[in-house]
């Protein structure tokens, strides 16, 4: 062996000075690879603290809510009965980037986690366009502190129960608290606190305006097709067009700005839940990329440490074993199968991009003329920065990875008796598999598409939403509890209409229609 091994430490025990020396080495290597990261704040915590962190979805400071307690109990139960190992690390998209290490990890694990979280995830948070556009790493911790304080104050003033009910309702809609296409203004705790009183007053006047005065209908605007009133209204009293004038996908935003009866503090809490949902929005869309990127870098960095003789064989073997476990992908028919493993998929794609850059085959040149033979580090950086799971897979999933993972596409149509294998890992199937897998990660496909189409400001103040159905997939049974929550926030009846290709397939109402008829005079 050419290198003389001078391992920084051996065995499985660690201490802070050893960790610091490993971190220095990793930082040096990361710098060599031009990984751009936030400063790291590495916190060593106990198992119980890790379960806490888990329960609060990794927010270092969280407001109080029973659902986090439920989460904690579930994690605790699973952990105690050995059904689940705790994650070895948890990392928070903030500046400095906070990473948690569990105290009972072995030395190898700690080094692996530092490489994975503090250099992998960290650089992803800093570089990826979604995180850059949607989250504000500088201020998130401050904002969480602000949110916690504000909600605690509300609990004191208005009672724990009232706040809890409101949060329940907001949580039910939090996946619909995000503007998908426009960049939100960054959140800043200081400003929030400063402007909050102002905003309370202002918001209320806005809402009052909306409901007090009936807006002038824009001249010459024809009643929209499907408008509820057009035929029975010869004088055109109701023909003022719909409000909102365009469908709104951000339900919580719409509620915050337009719900007639919410008190200012309630609007503020809606806003808090919405802001936090927005903070987590990029994470929901970049799981494969984020984990793949982090795995790629821990793999690369650990191998470099080994090549330079900074770690011994024992540690390296332990690393390889745990790395293999992380990126293991059981087949669909395995008892251990629980869906595609984002670590495995992401790692495979990033490794494959590197391969395509360094040693492209004829196939690669056909499929990826742009990147075949290009410098791998730049190409990888480009892929990390400018994509989300959906587009990343569409762009970079290569035939080789499809073959390696033996991916295949099944069409499950409730109108036919059998499932159909629509494509497999062969020449005819690559594109279809890639397309299908890409859309499998698209939030717009994963979650039902639901938008506010009308608030009846001239009528009974009811709120109408449309569910745009896709491939006849109906809403799950949870729809009633959710629209009940929505109705609580809105304060007036809520109608949800499932549509497919312009035709109504199903209507949901809350309160359930018979009741509301009785209530009306």
């Amino acid at each position, binding site marked *: 062996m050419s290198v003389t091994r001078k391992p920084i430490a051996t065995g499985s025990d660690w201490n802070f000075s050893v960790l610091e020396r490993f971190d220095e080495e990793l930082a040096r290597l990361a710098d060599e690879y031009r990984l751009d990261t936030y400063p790291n704040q590495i916190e060593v915590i106990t198992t*119980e603290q890790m379960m806490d962190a888990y329960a*609060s979805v990794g927010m270092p400071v969280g407001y109080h809510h029973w659902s986090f*307690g439920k989460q904690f109990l579930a994690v605790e139960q699973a952990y105690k009965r050995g059904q689940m190992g705790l994650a070895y690390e948890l990392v928070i998209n903030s500046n400095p980037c906070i990473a948690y290490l569990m105290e009972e990890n072995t030395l190898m694990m700690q080094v692996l986690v530092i490489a994975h979280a503090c250099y992998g995830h960290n650089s992803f948070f800093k570089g990826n366009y979604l995180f850059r556009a949607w989250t504000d790493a500088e201020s998130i911790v401050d904002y969480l502190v602000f949110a916690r304080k504000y909600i605690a104050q509300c609990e004191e003033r208005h009672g724990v129960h009232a706040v809890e009910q409101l949060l329940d309702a907001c949580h*039910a809609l939090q996946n619909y608290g995000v503007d998908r296409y426009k960049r939100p203004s960054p959140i800043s705790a200081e400003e929030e606190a400063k402007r909050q009183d102002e905003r309370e007053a202002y918001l209320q006047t806005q809402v009052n305006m909306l409901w007090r005065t009936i807006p002038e209908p824009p001249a010459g605007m024809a009643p929209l097709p499907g408008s509820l009133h057009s035929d029975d209204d010869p004088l055109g009293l109701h023909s003022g067009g719909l409000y909102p004038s365009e469908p709104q996908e951000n339900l919580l935003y719409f509620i915050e700005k337009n719900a007639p009866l919410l008190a200012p503090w309630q609007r503020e809490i809606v806003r808090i839940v919405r802001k936090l949902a927005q903070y987590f929005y990029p994470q929901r869309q970049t799981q494969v990329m984020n984990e793949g990127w982090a795995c790629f870098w821990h793999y690369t960095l650990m191998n470099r440490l080994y090549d330079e003789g900074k770690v011994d064989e024992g540690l390296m073997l332990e690393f390889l074993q745990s790395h293999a476990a992380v990126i293991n*992908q059981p087949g669909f028919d395995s008892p251990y199968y629980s869906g595609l493993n984002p670590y495995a998929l992401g790692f495979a794609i990033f490794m494959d991009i590197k391969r395509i850059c360094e040693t492209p085959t004829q196939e690669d040149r056909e499929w990826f003329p742009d990147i075949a033979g290009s410098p791998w580090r730049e190409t990888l950086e480009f892929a990390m920065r400018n994509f989300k799971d959906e587009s990343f897979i569409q762009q970079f999933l290569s035939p080789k990875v499809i073959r390696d993972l033996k991916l295949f596409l099944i069409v499950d*149509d409730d109108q036919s008796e059998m499932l159909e294998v629509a494509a497999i890992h062969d020449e005819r199937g690559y594109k279809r598999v890639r397309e299908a897998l890409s859309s499998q990660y698209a939030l717009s496909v994963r979650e039902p598409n639901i938008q506010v189409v009308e608030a009846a400001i001239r009528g009974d103040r009811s709120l109408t939403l449309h569910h745009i159905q896709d491939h006849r997939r109906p809403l799950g049974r949870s729809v009633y509890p959710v629209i009940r929550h929505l109705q609580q926030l809105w304060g007036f009846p809520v109608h949800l209409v499932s549509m497919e290709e312009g035709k109504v397939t199903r209507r949901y109402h809350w309160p359930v229609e018979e009741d509301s008829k009785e209530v009306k005079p």
Partner: protein
Amino acid sequence: MTYFIDRRPNAKHKSAVNRQRFLERYRKHIKRSVEEAVNRRSITDMERGEKISIPAKDISEPVFQHGQGGARNIVSPGNKEFLQGDKIRRPGGQGGGGGAGEGGASNQGEGSDEFAFTLSREEFLEFVFDGLELPHLQRKPLKSLEEIKMVRAGLARDGVPSRISITRSMREAYARRIAMRAPIKRALKEAQEALAAEERKDPVLRNPARIVELKAEIERLEKRIEAVPFIDTYDLRYHQLAAQPQPSSQAVMFCVMDVSGSMTQNHKDIAKRFFLLLYLFLEKHYEKVELVFVRHHTAAREVNEEEFFYSRETGGTIVSSALNLVNKIIEKRYPAGQWNLYVAQASDGDNWDDDSNICRDLLVKQLMPQLQYYAYVEITPHDHQSLWHEYETVAAQFPERFAMRQIVDAGDIYPVFRELFKRRLSQER
């Protein structure tokens, strides 16, 4: 830039508030599970947590999601034998594929899973006490694990004057005196010998200056010897006390229950909580608590717990048979001098009319003089019969140690023990 922070010493139980909120919100569910656990468990086995299950649909957090049906595409890994165009039968029941890649799609609804978690020992007892309407002041002493007693544990250099160990202090002082004087004494001896040698010399050869010097030295040394204190604060030794968990001694608890036909299972469940509370109390205060179960109808028998609570018999009721048996067992196995004796009796109040005054005499003359406490509950919504009235005269004679009460549900149990708990609490202060 990297900072390492050791957070381990920091705030534990960060989720405690959320956990409490959760328990509060699902109080009803949890209470039901705890009640079941109490009925199921032995009354000596309340000192551990309990696994609680709540139907997952009751605690789900709903969000909009896709339901079953329609057409969907699923990409899965690990294809072995499929070719494009193959048709596969749907895997049994559920719609195909198990929702590959749809993270979170299965966290509710389908499958009707139970949400299971574990209550800690404290939380469990808290729920038990809740049903018994135990005042909060009483809950803590019952939940705390051990009684503490201060015991001597070696010596220490500081303490309060009343705990000085005289022998050890004097021994220390003696040793110190020897140690401090030894070098001075040696020097003194040398000086005296030098002086003697000087004085033995021929007067012409004597060095007067040397003699003066030696005499001064001797005087100085003698003073120094005197100055060594007889006792110093340095020498003091104190007996040290250490807190040691120390339940006081042993007790035996007699559970006496009427099992005649008129006692239903519901009566017995209430009785079980009655015995349970007394047991928890005794367990806190005695090192060893033995349980004796005596059941009776027209004749009494000593049985094990299982049989005591769960087997049924029919027939009339003669309470004195049980009291006699208790008395015999005490004589034979638990002499009053060595055991603290407690009797808890549960009945529905039925008794043969001419047996009740026998019971009273038995209690007043034989049992009560030996017992620490006698608790009687009558589980009936009906009017009292002769037994109750006879017991009332006993209660009048032993107001401190005889408690009786009519109860309809578990919440009425605690007042029976009120005196007992109160006394204990005032003793502790």
